[in-house]
């Protein structure tokens, strides 16, 4: 057991995929619109303007709470969080402080429950751009209120996360969940999913727990993991010297790959929370919840069970393939086209997922499509190419998008199962490698692989490895 035990809690903001903003009817297409074109008196804080709750946002928030296994409060309320900043048009944010929408949820990561303390609804602020390093020192700053008023849910976890890797896994699973039910795009790079983390480390040898550090500015799953790794290591280096890090807020700098102190950016503010007098309390009845439940998509776990039942694929494969909505869709489409679910799941699990990971592609972008799987299967079952050749062809399809049969044709990759030819090459190889043959004869049967390998090399992978194996064994035994 490691000397240092890490504790992480996350505070996550998710932009809800509604057509209009949280408290007014401005459009939410933040990214396509010119600055300050999706604005109105309400979301720019004009005198006399009033908020009106977006029902669609409430619905999505309730869906999220259900998918996160949380307990929904029948009565929750909006409150004002008061502070001054140019991206906050009213001088306060409408949020839920005292009575949030839902509490006590969880997400399971590899059989472990990461508990969620609370889920609540609030509005987003505008986007601030200032020249230079800090707004205090900048010569000018620009504000775009298109984002002001976009609906958000804030999810706060208990400090159950024990490693940066786990934190990343949590974020990725959360993303899958919100994408599944069309709650949010979950796109971290575009700011639809944002997270801040609190991290502390316990030195189990001395019993000293470090101060808690807040880490912000991690705008991708990879950076969540990297930033927290950096921070954990930084904290450990202090603890090892018998020192402690200051309790502060630090930002992740993706260029220098370090965190830097943001002390002074957020002084201890008193937000003077009080109930929002312009809005009625949110009443979520049991009937309403039942209606929403009907609209929930088949959840990942149910889908996994169904995959095992319907497609007779292994439970492990089913779990992996159902975890992501898009991958699940792809699998089912391919299984339908190919007519052999096991084949599809095998090839997806071993070949496709690896390619996606290595090339950092998502399943919607990858050039190999479900219909290509059908071709591959046919090429193999008709004996035109070997399985190992098919794997190479697979990679080529991923790279070029060209159909497997065309690739086989163009590159002349047809399987060689000409026994005579194989024997001829083998005899030559055996003659050229007497030492290795001796090893084989002395019982080191694993060197068979060397001979097989040579044939494969000479035939540029086209020989049928099973056949080569058989023939090599036969010939070596005869020597």
């Amino acid at each position, binding site marked *: 057991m490691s000397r240092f035990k890490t504790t992480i809690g996350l505070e996550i903001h998710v932009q809800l995929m509604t057509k209009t903003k949280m408290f007014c009817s401005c459009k939410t297409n933040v990214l396509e619109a010119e600055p300050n074109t999706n604005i109105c008196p309400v979301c720019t*804080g004009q005198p*006399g303007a009033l908020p009106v709750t977006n029902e669609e946002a409430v619905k999505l928030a309730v869906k999220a709470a259900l998918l996160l296994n949380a307990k929904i409060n029948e009565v929750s309320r909006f409150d004002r969080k008061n502070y001054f900043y140019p991206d906050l048009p009213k001088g306060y944010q409408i949020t839920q402080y005292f009575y949030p929408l839902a509490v006590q949820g969880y997400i399971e990561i590899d059989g472990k429950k990461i508990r969620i303390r609370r889920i609540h609804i609030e509005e987003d602020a505008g986007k601030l751009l200032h020249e230079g390093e800090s*707004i205090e020192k900048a010569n000018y700053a620009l504000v775009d209120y298109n984002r002001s008023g976009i609906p958000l849910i804030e999810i706060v976890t208990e400090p159950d996360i024990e490693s940066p890797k786990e934190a990343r896994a949590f974020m990725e699973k959360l993303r899958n969940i919100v994408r599944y039910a069309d709650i949010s795009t979950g796109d971290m790079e575009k700011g639809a999913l944002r997270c801040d983390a609190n991290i502390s480390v316990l030195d189990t040898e001395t019993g000293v727990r470090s101060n808690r550090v807040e880490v912000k500015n991690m705008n991708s799953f990879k950076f969540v993991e990297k930033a927290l790794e950096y921070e954990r290591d930084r904290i450990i280096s202090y603890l090892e010297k018998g020192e402690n890090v200051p309790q502060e807020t630090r930002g992740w700098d993706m260029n220098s790959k370090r965190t830097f102190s943001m002390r002074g950016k957020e002084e201890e503010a008193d937000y*003077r929370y009080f109930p929002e007098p312009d809005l009625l309390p949110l009443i979520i009845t049991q009937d309403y919840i039942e209606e929403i439940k009907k609209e929930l998509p088949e959840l990942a776990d149910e889908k996994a069970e169904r995959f095992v039942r319907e497609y007779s694929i292994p439970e492990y494969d089913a779990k992996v393939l159902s975890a992501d909505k898009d991958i699940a869709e792809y699998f089912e489409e391919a299984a339908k086209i190919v007519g052999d679910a096991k084949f599809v799941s095998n090839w997806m699990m071993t070949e496709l997922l690896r390619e996606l990971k290595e090339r950092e592609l998502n399943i919607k972008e990858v050039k190999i499509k479900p219909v290509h799987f059908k071709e591959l299967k046919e090429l193999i079952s008709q004996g035109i190419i070997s399985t190992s050749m098919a794997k190479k062809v697979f990679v080529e399809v991923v790279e070029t998008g060209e159909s497997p049969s065309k690739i086989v044709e163009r590159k002349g990759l047809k399987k060689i199962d000409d026994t005579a030819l194989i024997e001829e090459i083998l005899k030559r190889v055996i003659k050229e490698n007497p030492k290795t043959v001796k090893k084989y004869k002395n019982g080191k049967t694993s060197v068979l692989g060397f001979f097989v390998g040579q044939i494969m090399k000479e035939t540029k992978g086209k020989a049928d490895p099973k056949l080569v194996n058989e023939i090599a064994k036969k010939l070596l035994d005869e020597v």
Partner: protein
Amino acid sequence: MVDLNIDELIGRDILEETLKLLKNDTLNSILEVGLLKGNEKGKYFGIPFLVKDNIVVEGFKATCASKILENYSPPYTATAVKRLLNAGFSVVGKTNLDEFAMGSSNENSAFGPVKNPVDTDRIPGGSSGGSAAAVSAGYVPFALGSDTGGSVRLPASFCGVVGYKPSYGLISRYGLVAFASSLDQIGPITTNVKDAALITQIMMGKDPLDSTTVDMKMDLLTDLSKPIKEYKIAYPKFIFKYEMVENEVLEIFEKVLETIKNLGARVTEVDLEFMKYAVAVYYIIAPAEASSNLARFDGVRYGVRKEKEGLKSTYKYTRDYGFGLEVKRRIFMGNFTLSTGYYEAYYNRAMKVRRLIYEEFKELFEKYDALILPTSPVLPPKIGEIKEPLQYYLMDMFTIIANLGGLPAISIPAGEIKNLPVGIQIMGKQFDDAKVLQIANNIEFALSGGAKDE
């Protein structure tokens, strides 16, 4: 005092002559003169009205009588005003007020105090002093004000006209610059009760842009003149308890009680236990909500900006320059009562007591049809006479309770002493506006010696 009556003006176009009158105003009641014509096909086309300058009307500035908004032109029009424009009425100007509606004397305006037309050495009352003065001076048949703690009723009383605060939730606040969101209501200031009922009827109704409006059908006009025989009217014991209440006011009040008895209604003294907390509760809740509502005035998006090096300094300089003393005082109070460590002891506790006041009224109105009491404990003071904030706040003691309870409340002229007008209030159960107006109408008729026509 000229007495303009909406009924008598139907079919006449007096817009141009009204604009002339306004330009010659010497009471400092008008901040901006202009013309936004109503719907030409509307029944009331040709009839002018004024709007308090904390209610937005596109085409006019909305200064809220504050330096911080002295150059602000709103990009939209308040719902209540829109409905009046639809009915044909035309806006002819914006009236002066206590800055951001914070005040009871209209001495807190950044653009100078308003004079009471009945006696120009005296205050017209506030915060809708400009609106009340203009109606009293006969410029327009009605003007819109806003009432958070009595700001429509008190100036109406001091200027000898009618001021009505409808039940909270009846009239959309969309477009009313918020002072205290849970207390604010737009209300008409008129020369007679019937017009107050008419204007309210046109303005009221659910507004999808204001979540605090209710969806209730109400007929405020049909039963206005129905007699109030056998009605049970209560009046509170506490009005006789406070030293601050002037004898002249009580004199007029007792005369009104007699009038009511002569109309066949029954008059009973009641003891309202929580009334003694009303002023304290109000002066915790209102400034708290105000401190938050006024945070948007930061010089970033609109209004005046006083730039200094750095963001914080710009905020500070802008707000220091832009806000008057009374506004600053209330923002401080609000920030204090909402701050960590004090929220529970002040704001939260005040909200709980407010609930008790609300419940006490509910009980009261189960037994009685209405509550009657003076509008102001004092006759209209001279300009500059009141110096202490606390003394100032106590002028609201009789009006505040209606805002705390969300109750309909109207002030009508009840008589004169030393040539100064004294008003009395009729308050009713929340959403019992029709009854309150009916009672007020009957009393108004009786007080005029039955000389007024229906």
